[in-house]
């Protein structure tokens, strides 16, 4: 089965095969009957719609139950502009795409703030609202709808004086769909596509490596809206009539079913799903009759029966690194990053991160109560303390997940207190989590590569069009990831999805991701927890690498032997306050520290 899937993956991934299919459809359409051409045209629409929801829901993780809304915006804008206002078809189409992209972008502003059920309800509401507007507004023709839109069936579709017939329109749709698919594949296999996935997996983790979640969501909604809008505009000219009944929740469900059954989060999946559900109702009478019930059953049972859809069952999952960046000659293997040697002793260097009198309350509970710290380049500082002493809160406040209640946080001379987490990460302060937060379906390599997010410069357009500069950037980053994996001893599992690997690997990958970010300051929250002896060794090597590269490292850890071996300095917290600062040896003997850990009162201590 695995061999079969790998084979299928290789066959379906061939661009030549895709090209051959497009060419065959182009010429085939001229030879076959009109009914088939019409069906193929609907297939193109369904592919566009399924990919649109795939980008938003399958890749960026924002569930959409109102996709018919975007479809309706595109269709009605194109229909109304050409029919009522006499705008030229191509211009109207561009405006329609822009309008639905804008609607998506606007919807993302409130929708970006919420998740799960709120988002599901909100998108359902959006779909219903679009339907109601189409039904009630005079501009859209109300319940009667909008008829007589220029279309091949009415022999009225003219573009630049050229009469477009059914076959021509199908060819236009074919080319448009093919272009969208290529752009989408390029986009998904770039750092932009990876940032979408990172937001889906964990918004907190995405923020911690410098991904602005709000921006990612606005982009996802806008692009998804544009794709559905394109489908809508094409639909308007394909059928020549728009009525509100084409844009009910049934349509939204249909689009969702196609994408889920085909396989969300892949490129090939939604194409297969669209093909299946375009063909089934046409060719299978019984299916058409029970269509709605069948959709219901499919949604009910799909996760139990076929969690990854058809694509997951028959082929390998899509990968998220540009394949051309992976194809390189063995001689230009990753070179180690040259390290800046510091002449000063670590203690005398200016601090990279300074925390002054930091406090944080949670509704009356004081979690941090006036902590001060200075992290210097090339120095490893341990932060220890009993459970609930405020260690993780300190990391969360410094990395921007919580706002400080009082005090100052200064990174490289700038006060960063209250800045958004992704902005702080972009400045070079990178943290890891107590429970590793990676993208489960990504391979080790892809996860490590995510750390480089803050260094990528290519625009979305450059990524979608595969500019040479984008490729160069990707190649450079892939090489750096290679080097990090070597350092972490992860080379052997580089291409395995992280969800298939044991826990220890996840920790190492997360620390590797932090190294990949080439940070200024690193905050490691219990990186050694649950690691085997061998893995501890690798972790120590990675942390020492960071130190030698002149990074300031803060290490929260309970594993005392591990801490003892590598740290320069230790700070002990208890109940949100500093109770000790200095060497490890001094700490073991310190009465306050012993009291905090063992609960003996200071007087009893001999």
């Amino acid at each position, binding site marked *: 089965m695995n061999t079969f899937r790998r084979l299928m993956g290789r066959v379906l991934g061939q661009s030549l095969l895709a090209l051959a299919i497009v060419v065959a459809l182009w010429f085939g359409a001229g030879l076959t009957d009109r009914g088939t051409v019409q069906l193929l045209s609907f297939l193109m629409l369904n592919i566009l719609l399924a990919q649109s929801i795939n980008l938003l829901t399958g890749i960026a993780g924002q569930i959409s139950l109102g996709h018919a809304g975007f479809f309706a915006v595109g269709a009605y804008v194109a229909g109304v502009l050409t029919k009522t206002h006499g705008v030229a078809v191509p211009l109207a189409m561009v405006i329609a795409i822009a309008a639905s992209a804008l609607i998506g972008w606007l919807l993302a502003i409130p929708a970006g703030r919420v998740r799960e059920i709120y988002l599901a309800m909100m998108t359902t509401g959006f779909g219903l609202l679009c339907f109601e507007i189409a039904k009630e507004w005079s501009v859209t023709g109300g319940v009667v709808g909008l008829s007589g839109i220029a279309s091949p069936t009415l022999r009225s579709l003219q573009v630049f004086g050229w009469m477009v017939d059914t076959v021509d329109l199908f060819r236009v749709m074919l080319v448009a769909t093919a272009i969208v698919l290529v752009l989408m594949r390029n986009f998904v296999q770039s750092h932009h596509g990876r940032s979408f996935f990172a937001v889906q997996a964990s918004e907190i983790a995405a923020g911690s490596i410098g991904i602005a979640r709000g921006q990612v969501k606005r982009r996802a909604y806008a692009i998804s809206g544009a794709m559905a809008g394109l489908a809508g505009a094409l639909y308007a000219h394909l059928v020549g009539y728009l009525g509100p009944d084409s844009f009910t*929740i049934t349509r939204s469900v249909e689009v969702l079913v196609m994408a889920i059954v085909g396989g969300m989060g892949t490129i090939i999946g939604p194409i297969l799903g669209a093909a299946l559900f375009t063909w089934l109702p046409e060719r299978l009478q019984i299916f058409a009759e029970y269509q709605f019930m069948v959709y219901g059953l499919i949604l009910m049972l799909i996760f139990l029966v076929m969690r990854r859809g058809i694509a997951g069952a028959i082929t390998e999952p899509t990968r998220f690194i540009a394949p051309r960046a992976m194809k390189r000659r063995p001689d230009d293997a990753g070179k180690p990053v040259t390290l800046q040697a510091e002449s000063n002793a670590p203690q005398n260097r200016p601090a990279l991160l300074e925390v002054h009198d930091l406090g944080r309350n949670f509704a009356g509970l004081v979690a941090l109560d006036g902590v001060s710290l200075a992290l210097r380049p090339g120095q490893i500082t341990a932060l220890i303390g009993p459970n609930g002493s405020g260690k993780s809160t300190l990391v969360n406040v410094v990395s921007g997940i919580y706002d400080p209640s009082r005090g100052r946080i200064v990174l490289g001379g700038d006060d960063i207190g209250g800045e958004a987490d992704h902005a702080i990460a972009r400045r070079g302060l990178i943290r890891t989590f107590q429970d590793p937060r990676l993208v*489960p379906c990504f391979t080790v390599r892809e996860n490590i590569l995510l750390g480089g997010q803050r260094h990528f410069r290519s625009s979305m357009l450059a990524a979608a069009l595969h500019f040479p500069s984008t490729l160069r950037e990707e190649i450079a980053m892939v090489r750096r990831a290679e080097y990090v994996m070597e350092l972490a001893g992860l080379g052997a599992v580089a291409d395995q999805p992280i969800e298939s690997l044991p826990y220890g690997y996840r920790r190492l990958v997360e620390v590797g991701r932090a190294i990949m970010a080439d940070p200024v300051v690193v905050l490691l929250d219990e990186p050694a927890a649950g690691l085997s002896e061998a893995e501890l060794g690798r972790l120590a090597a990675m942390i020492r690498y960071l130190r030698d590269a002149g990074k300031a490292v803060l290490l929260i850890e309970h594993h005392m032997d591990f801490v003892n071996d590598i740290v320069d300095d230790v700070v002990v917290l208890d109940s949100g306050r500093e109770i000790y600062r200095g060497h490890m040896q001094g700490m073991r003997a310190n009465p306050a520290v012993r009291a905090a850990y063992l609960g003996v009162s200071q007087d009893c201590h001999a």
Partner: protein
Amino acid sequence: MIFAAQLVFAGICVGAVYALIALGLNLTFWATRTMNFAQGSLMMLCAVIAVGVLSGGFNIYLGLFAGLALTGIIAAATEAIAIRPIAHLTGSMGWVVTTLGVGIFLQGFVSKFFGSQALAFPSFLFSARDYVSVFGIRLSAQYMIILAIAVLLVLLFELFLKRTAWGRALQAVAADQDLAAVMGIPVRVVVTLSFIASGVLAGVAGVLVAQITGTVDAAFGFNLLISGFVAAVIGGMGSTWGALLGGIFLGIMEKLVGGYISTAAEQGIAFALLMVMLAVRPEGLLGEKEFVKV
């Protein structure tokens, strides 16, 4: 003035039904941190079954009983089939999609076997023409009884929650399912009972709305589901009094906009309020802000 008062009154009555829907959503939200997207279809199903039983020559109350029993059972089955087995899947994609599937299936079932045309729903609580006059304002008797039933149910529910052992068990499960299990609370039973209760509440709400509108069709539930959800969000997710407050507020707003601006705009009010609420005060009027634990 009288027109405005009548609109407000109608809004309060409709809003009380929204509160019932919101209560049904709250129940499953407490028990499992999920919400049943089939709730809208359950409302529709209960009313359709009542009509079906009636047209079969039986008593309407027998029909209502059958409808409520069935919605309760289906809600519990939804939890067993569509929520529990996929609880381990990460993300919200899982149960939102599966419970939506249940709802779509029920909708498809009804439109296949009862037709997609609207069915007339009989008046069994007074007739649509009966009214009581208060200070010259005509208050429909039907609306008043609906308001009374809805408010009574909300009150009973709050009493149940605060005063009975089962109510406290539900609160414990809502706070922390694992901890509740460790303390010996039969979590499974509590969850199943909550789903049954939420199904029955949906059924009652469906019948009450059908009583007002006079008809019911297969697509009847989705808009109501959104209204109920918006009521819950306005009041604060999980708050009983908040649900009542939010429902009535939404109901009044809808009627006022429908009366003074246009009935078409009435449809958009719930959505607009949802947007404003999530932007301004996502925890709702009576809800408490939760800290996200990292």
